[in-house]
């Protein structure tokens, strides 16, 4: 892996370099193209209601993908993020049913995801286990834990605060906005700022790019990686809150593909699975691309299985583009 953040001084950057410097541009273009294609090919896609719905439909995976991006930037991967989130929804629901107030249920749910990510991060940094293996094990354990904890039951959640992110408000008379959308946008902007404008963010990229060089330049590699897992843990807890806003029901069988869906969004967003390169804004585009494809293809009347084929092809295409861009350098 060559260092990809080094800028190449030249008068006219090649297209490849352009994409390397602005990783979110490609996904943004793809998103625009997708929206245009569906706007022309159906007469139900391009209206404010539907666009709002598409964004709402992308929130849970989009939030999972935000945490996933951080972890992938450190050259890790988290296969257990959705299972951790589902466990948190169950914890919140059970506590609420047991008479705990919404705010405490919410906080304890987030504490749970932070604990899980903390344990995973510690195993990755202290015991030097591969993240793939640790989170594969965690996925199995957390899924079982969720089912045990819930006694296999799905638990409905009716609470002002826990469902708050799903509350619909109308702007300018017609545009449907949920608090969940606002929160997701704020979280993305905060993470974008932290990654691009703070020392911590630069450390995260450096650790993902070349851990050894990072260590030699005085960065505390282990501490940085652990901090990433802890931040991701908080984000997965908030994803659980998003999930209860979207579907006010904690179900141990929900989001079985959430982990892979979040990786899909990250990859479509142009973040490299080898670490050290990518952006959270790209991931936001990636999550929206998936939601737009699903919605648009559904309204075109395309069978869901063909939609999966298209999404899979797009993932491979995105990585191919990434490779070609690197080769041009």
């Amino acid at each position, binding site marked *: 892996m060559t260092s990809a953040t080094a800028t190449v001084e030249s008068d006219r950057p090649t297209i490849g370099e352009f994409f390397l410097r602005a990783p979110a541009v*490609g996904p943004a273009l793809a998103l625009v193209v997708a929206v245009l294609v569906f706007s022309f090919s159906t007469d*139900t896609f391009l209206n404010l209601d539907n666009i709002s719905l598409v964004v709402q439909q992308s929130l849970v995976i989009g939030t999972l993908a935000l945490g996933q991006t951080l972890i992938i930037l450190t050259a890790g991967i988290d296969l257990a993020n959705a299972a951790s989130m589902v466990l948190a929804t169950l914890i919140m629901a059970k506590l609420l049913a047991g008479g705990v107030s919404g705010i405490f249920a919410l906080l304890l749910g987030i504490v749970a995801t932070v604990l899980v990510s903390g344990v995973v991060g510690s195993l990755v940094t202290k015991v030097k286990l591969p993240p793939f293996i640790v989170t594969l094990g965690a996925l199995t354990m957390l899924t079982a834990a969720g089912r045990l904890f*819930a006694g*296999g039951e*799905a638990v409905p959640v009716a609470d002002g605060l826990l469902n708050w992110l799903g509350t619909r408000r109308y702007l300018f008379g017609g545009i449907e906005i949920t608090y969940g959308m606002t929160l997701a946008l704020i979280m993305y902007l905060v993470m974008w700022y932290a990654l691009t404008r703070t020392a911590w963010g630069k450390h995260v990229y450096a650790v993902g790019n070349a851990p050894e060089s990072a260590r030699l330049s005085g960065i505390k590699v282990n501490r940085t990686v652990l901090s990433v897992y802890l931040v991701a843990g908080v984000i997965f807890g908030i994803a659980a809150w998003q999930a209860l806003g979207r579907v006010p029901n904690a179900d141990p*069988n929900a989001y079985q593909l959430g982990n892979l869906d979040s990786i899909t969004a990250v990859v479509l967003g142009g973040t490299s699975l080898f670490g050290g390169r990518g952006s959270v804004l790209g991931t936001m585009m990636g999550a929206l691309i998936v939601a737009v494809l699903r919605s648009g*293809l559904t309204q075109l*009347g395309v069978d869901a299985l063909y939609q999966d084929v298209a999404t899979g092809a797009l993932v491979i*295409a995105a990585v191919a583009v990434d490779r070609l861009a690197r080769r041009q350098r």
Partner: protein
Amino acid sequence: MRKILTAGLVAAVLVSAGGCTVERHWGGNTNSGGGGGKAKVGLVTKTDTNPYFVELRAAASAAAQANGADFSALAGQFDGDNDGQVRAIENLMQQGATTILITPSSSTGVLDAIDRARKAGVLVIALDTATEPAEAVDATFATDNFVAGQQQGAYVKAALGGTQPKLFMVDGTAGSTVDTQRHTGFLSGIGLADGAPEIKGSTPANGDQSTAQQGVENLLQRTTDINAVYTMNEPMGRGTYAALKARGLTGQIVMGSIDGGCEGVQNVRDGQYAATVMQFPKKMAEQGVLAAVEYAKSGKKPAGFNNTGSVVITDKPMPGVESQNTDWGLQNCWGEK
């Protein structure tokens, strides 16, 4: 690069749009019940790969065609995919459906989206699985799963002929409504309580054949002294049979199942299990579509729980348990014959 991405995306869309599909694209965004309109029926199933839901979908599609209604079918990705079902409801509303027929993945998972659809004037009917509370939808067309479980339990009890049951229970997905109803129904039919010493072991197998086989193989490591097996559905019945056969235990055991798929009826005929309880997805779909057509025409809504019935299928009838033989079963079964 841009060209590649763009071309790729357009190609993906075009390729997939070429895929065959029973769905039609509707314009418009208005929901109007009544007023002599044309019915636009949307069906949301749990998944679109399970033969049971394939049958439901085919029957609904045929009924819609016969009655001049538009039809569109969507599904979740897996059993328990509430989020996918909510998305499906939203998409159908966008497309201006007048009626949504849904087999909810969880009886409580999609209530919020159903509520939104009903407020927008869409008639919502639950098929196959009731919601909790049942009033969350306008009406339900389904098997009474408690009764179906009871029928299996009563048959097994009669077949044991007064011998004390030594029972394995092969359950579906822990916590799913249908699973709970059939489980408690079976126990009521055989006359046992949950946790009774006669229950020698139980394993949740998510409705899946290979999981059931593994689960029962493991239970048999603990004890082979059993004489009865409850299975929640036929794929799990087949998995259980494979495990029992490997241990040479099939002769001493009365096994029952529920579903009434053609393969399951054939299994009964072949003696893999003694009896199965048939349900009628075709009836659910047809009645649902007819209600949708009526609603579009006159604005009249169906109401309450409508039991589409369940019938014991066996070639070894027992006194006191009403049943039909496998000839009748093969004529009335669902799925691939």
